[in-house]
């Protein structure tokens, strides 16, 4: 483990001024891609994900469609300019392929796919700026884009990360904490149903730290959930106004 360029935690305050259980500023807008059936942009601090949903639409090639349920296709990808320092190659890395899979498997339990037999729902996520916690910001964005597209869902899925920094469990890792901290637990959570749909630990944590981290993740997810609901409401308020305005 390398030494961080600045102390990650001093007197209980993180390098960017946050408390351990504090999210960075969360910004959410819904309906940002006009051609898409649904879309959302989510920022956790300097991490920004844009998600667009197309579908339900006809499945091609047809022999891959399912008679009793819809199929989801999820792509997570990072823009070449989204990372610090060098340009990232646009070719999908093994990491991006794995994250596409875990995001799909985090969204599937939330979507009523049985309502969409023989169809496909496409979820495309692009990281515009990366400063840690990109997969969980992606998950929130994807779930909002699905809701915006009017896809039937059991609950919104909210993503947050928890991590360990100088032995303290912290919420919403930024890039610095991700690189120099003692591990990272991205979590996807359905706040109403209280179900974990994404869980990946990259660290070496004792049982009690892990359980403590889960608790903090739930707290963080509930916080983000409120903002997400408001963003959805705003979108539909403004549509109503637009219709009213006519």
């Amino acid at each position, binding site marked *: 483990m390398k030494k961080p360029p600045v102390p990650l935690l001093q007197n209980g305050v993180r390098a960017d001024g946050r408390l351990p259980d504090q999210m960075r500023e969360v910004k959410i807008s819904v309906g940002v*891609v*006009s*051609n*898409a059936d649904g*879309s959302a942009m989510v920022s956790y601090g*300097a991490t920004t994900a*844009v*998600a*667009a949903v*197309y579908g339900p*639409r006809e499945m091609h090639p047809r022999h891959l469609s399912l008679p009793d349920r819809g199929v989801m296709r999820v*792509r997570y990808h990072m*823009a*070449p*300019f*989204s*990372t*610090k*320092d*060098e*340009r990232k190659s*646009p*070719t999908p890395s093994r990491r991006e392929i794995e994250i596409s899979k875990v995001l799909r498997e985090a969204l599937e339990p939330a979507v009523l796919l049985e309502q969409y037999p023989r169809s496909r729902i*496409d979820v*495309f996520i*692009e990281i*515009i*700026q*990366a*400063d840690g916690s990109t997969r969980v910001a992606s998950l929130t964005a994807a779930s909002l884009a699905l809701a915006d597209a009017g896809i039937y869902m059991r609950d919104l899925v909210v993503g947050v990360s928890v991590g360990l920094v100088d032995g303290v469990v912290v919420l919403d890792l930024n890039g610095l904490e991700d690189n120099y901290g003692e591990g990272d637990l991205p979590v996807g959570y359905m706040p109403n149903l209280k179900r974990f749909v994404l869980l990946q630990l990259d660290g070496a944590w004792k049982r009690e730290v892990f359980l403590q981290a889960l608790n903090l993740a739930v707290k963080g997810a509930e916080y983000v959930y409120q903002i997400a609901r408001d963003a959805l409401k705003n979108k539909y308020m403004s549509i109503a106004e637009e219709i009213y305005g006519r």
Partner: protein
Amino acid sequence: MASVSPYARRFISYLRREQIKRLAASKNRVDGRALDQTREIEIKTGVVKTADGSAEVKLGKTHVIAGVKVGLGQPFPDAPDEGVLVVSAEVLPHASPYTEVGPPDESAIELARVVDRGIRHCGYVDFKKLAVEGGKAYVLWVDLYIINDDGNLVDAANLASVAALKNTQLPAVVKDESGAVKLDRNNKSPLPLETSKVPVAVSVGKIANVLFLDPNFEEELSLDGRVTFTISEDRIVAAQKTLGYFTQPELEAALDLAIKGRDRYLEALKSILGSS
């Protein structure tokens, strides 16, 4: 690896296309614009903090982000004392229901190469100042990200590129312990530009022998011809016919119309290019 007629993928109904053609024949447009009128333009720079330069352009509902990353590399063998420009374009699957996931297709490649040629020949970027000692050169990676495609990607992407370059901060070149050169991103200075020479790409569409600026998505699916002129000061720095055909008088008229469009785009760029 071969170019296939792409009509099947993008779709507009026959009736709608006929309507657009009838309108055009009487010099009208579906969205009510005049023939020499572009859509609303919104340009912002510095929108991507992780990039060395960035800009976002909305041309009507067409939405493009350009990000510039600066690297170090080998100069081209035929220009050993100049920096290197690499323009890439990715039409995100977000951008329209017709976009597929995968590496850039021929349209994205053409888009990037037309933008690239415009920048390369006009003197906007001072490539001579981008050579680095020891046979190296700065590499400017310009990535064009199409977020939403409502037509006329090339004009929007070109605007985004030149704005992002204007926003670009060049990391200093330093030597590491072994004497090899590397970039120091904590020490940056503006990219050397000649803003008066900014290249502006202007696309002209033709329907029913009528020429007009800035075709939107529906118009693009009804075109009999499209040509893009990239203009810098009093010079054409790139031209590309991208659909159909033009007679010689039509080409000359298209060029004149493009010069009008250039003025409109320059106006939109003014606040960006003015601020130094």
